[in-house]
């Protein structure tokens, strides 16, 4: 594995940057082609309709231009990327003992099996292109909760799968949703039956080990009437000299009276292009929360969105972005109101450090005829250094004049007086700066489960090292 050279991350400690001595059992040839798409479908032993869906999506992808309205994607070369790497013959192992040892060790190092025992209702673990492990607690299985890889979802529950798949994010939506639709591999299939409340979170963990591999997970979550679920995804990868690519699609359907929450703590290394489409359809009196934490990657473009399509639906989007030197976090959210008496909010907190750049990009759309919609947007940017940068692109399309729309945006700099004040009580300068940043994101971070809030604070302290003085 001479190509897998671990290099020092630029100025920052990235503790997940280790490489495993794991060779994929099968890897597609480099680059994107009809042949590669067919090979992926063949390896997954898919029904013919899915292969047709993939090939159609490939055409849509090829027809759409690279978007130029957001972050700079000119460094992303599809010819240099592997689109599929199969880590092991066995998918969806139900015990860690069945996972190949080298892969299992990685998840142990990341603390996943331990968290599973203590605080999670179920875990899915994706390694390169496939889910190598999936397990959910026995009592939830008995209640009919389905939590398997997306491939197993298609194989075992084809009717349910087909009813919802690509209905929330169709391939036509955007270029990278089309790409994902063509080459998707891995991700979770989740179904929570009517009235079932999953108290502890389900977590999926995404790890890319192979150099120059693109990861294209596809997750479909269906929360049936009156049910509740919290799904968490985390991501890390080794640090390579070459750029990597991650482009997921997340589709969520929240049926009448259901409550769901989707939390992302994205901590990719600083050479990852991360272009993700996440969308929820929220029905009558249902609620959905996106909690989106973007710390890593080179470029992230991600705007979790909620479509409030029936009366009484609500959704909140909470977003944290941390852009360090060499990073562009182009993040935000979209709320689309297509029914009366719906509501929601966007709270975005971005931090730019060194020459890092964070952009808030958001859309609030209220359709004509959607009466008495209430929505509030708050985006706050914190700049750590002189050369740090932030931009705000808040789009508002309000077609109904009964809507109540609030919007507030602030930009502040790390404040010398605050630093001196905290230092004068004994805190070293770096710790003082990190504490101020933690305070800044507190309104969002307090919504995280404790373990994740602690981890987020630790990551921010690492990112803030050597930030001032």
């Amino acid at each position: 594995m001479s190509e897998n050279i671990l290099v020092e991350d630029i100025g920052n400690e990235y503790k997940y940057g280790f490489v495993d001595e794991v060779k994929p059992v099968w890897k597609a040839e480099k680059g994107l082609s009809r042949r590669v798409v067919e090979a992926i479908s063949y390896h997954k032993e898919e029904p013919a309709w899915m292969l047709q869906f993939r090939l159609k999506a490939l055409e849509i992808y090829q027809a759409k231009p690279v978007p130029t309205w957001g972050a700079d994607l000119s460094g992303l070369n599809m010819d240099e990327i592997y689109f599929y790497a199969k880590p092991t013959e066995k998918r969806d192992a139900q015990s860690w003992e069945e996972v190949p040892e080298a892969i299992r060790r990685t998840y142990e190092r990341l603390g996943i099996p331990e968290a599973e025992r203590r605080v999670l209702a179920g875990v899915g673990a994706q390694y390169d292109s496939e889910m190598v492990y999936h397990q959910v607690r026995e009592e939830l299985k008995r209640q009919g909760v389905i939590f398997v890889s997306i491939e197993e979802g298609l194989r075992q529950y084809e009717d349910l799968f087909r009813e919802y798949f690509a209905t929330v994010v169709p391939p036509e939506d955007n270029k990278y949703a089309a790409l994902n639709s063509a080459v998707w591999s891995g991700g979770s299939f989740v179904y929570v039956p009517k009235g079932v409340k999953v108290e502890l979170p389900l977590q999926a963990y995404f790890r890319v080990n192979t150099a120059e591999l693109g990861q294209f997970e596809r997750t479909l979550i269906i929360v049936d009437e009156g049910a509740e679920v919290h799904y968490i995804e985390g991501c890390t990868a080794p640090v390579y000299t070459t750029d990597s690519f991650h482009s997921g699609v997340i589709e969520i359907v929240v049926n009448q009276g259901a409550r769901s929450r989707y939390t992302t703590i994205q901590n990719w290394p600083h050479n990852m292009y991360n272009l993700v489409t996440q969308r929820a359809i929220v029905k009558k009196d249902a609620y959905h929360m996106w909690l989106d934490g973007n710390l890593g990657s080179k470029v992230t473009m991600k705007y979790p969105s909620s479509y409030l399509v029936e009366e009484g639906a609500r959704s909140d989007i909470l977003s944290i972005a941390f852009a360090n030197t060499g990073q562009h976090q182009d993040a935000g959210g979209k709320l689309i109101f297509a029914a009366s008496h719906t509501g929601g909010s966007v709270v975005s907190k971005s931090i730019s450090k060194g020459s890092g750049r964070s952009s808030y990009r958001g859309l609030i759309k209220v359709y004509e005829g959607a009466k008495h919609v209430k929505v509030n947007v708050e985006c706050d940017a914190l700049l750590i250094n002189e050369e740090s940068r932030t931009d705000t692109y808040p789009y508002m399309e309000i077609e109904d004049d009964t809507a109540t729309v609030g919007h507030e945006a602030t930009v502040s700099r790390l404040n010398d007086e605050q630093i001196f004040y905290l230092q004068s009580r004994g805190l070293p300068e770096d710790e003082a700066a990190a504490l101020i940043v933690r305070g800044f994101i507190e309104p969002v971070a307090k919504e995280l489960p404790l373990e994740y809030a602690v981890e987020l604070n630790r990551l921010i302290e690492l990112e803030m090292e050597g930030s001032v003085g």
Partner: protein
Amino acid sequence: MANELEIRNLHARIVDGEAILKGVNLVVPKGQIHAVMGPNGAGKSTLGKVIAGDPGYEVTQGDILVDGESILELGPDERARKGLFLAFQYPVEVPGVSNANFLRLALQAKRGEEVSVSEFYAKLQKALETLEWDESILTRYLNDGFSGGEKKRNEIMHMMVLEPTYAILDETDSGLDIDALKLVAKGVNAMRGPNFGALLITHYQRILNYIVPDAVHVMIDGRIVTSGGPELAMKLEEQGYDWVKELAVAN
């Protein structure tokens, strides 16, 4: 080893700006409380900030010594760990950071080791009791939305928990009503003892009725021009600063 905070011929200016301190000489022995009085613009608050290590000022001449050791080369946090404390005239708001969590971090930073929750809580309880305050102040964000009086009282609570050897109280009395002033004084008096020295910066004699100083120094135009006992404060209250200003010119 000298048991005192010594300010020796201290000259300081705003970074790249005008000179404010023009040769301050002052000694606060451990176990004593000294007051520094003076009119607006005399440099009293600057003195406090320079002692604490505010990077907005630079020392151009002289020295600051804690127990005989110069602290000029130390950063504000290192000075705090040497036992210094500055109660700010305008305590700074830090949204999202809980008052108690911060204070525990500060205490741990000062000691260089973990402080148990039970020990920390006991210290908080004692301070709250002295300051006749309820626990709700602990979970609020640091100074965020505090009234002027709450901010000043909170500075005294920090001081009581951190237990500095030398505290500088920068106009902690200004803007307080008489009840709040008494509570703040109660907090300072509770700290009084052989291991605590303080420099009380104030405009008014009023607080000195409740915290009786061992010495009073009058500062005019960046220098201490005269010193005396508590009676000096009474004289200033009656006669104003004009006579001291004349003294300064005569010097």
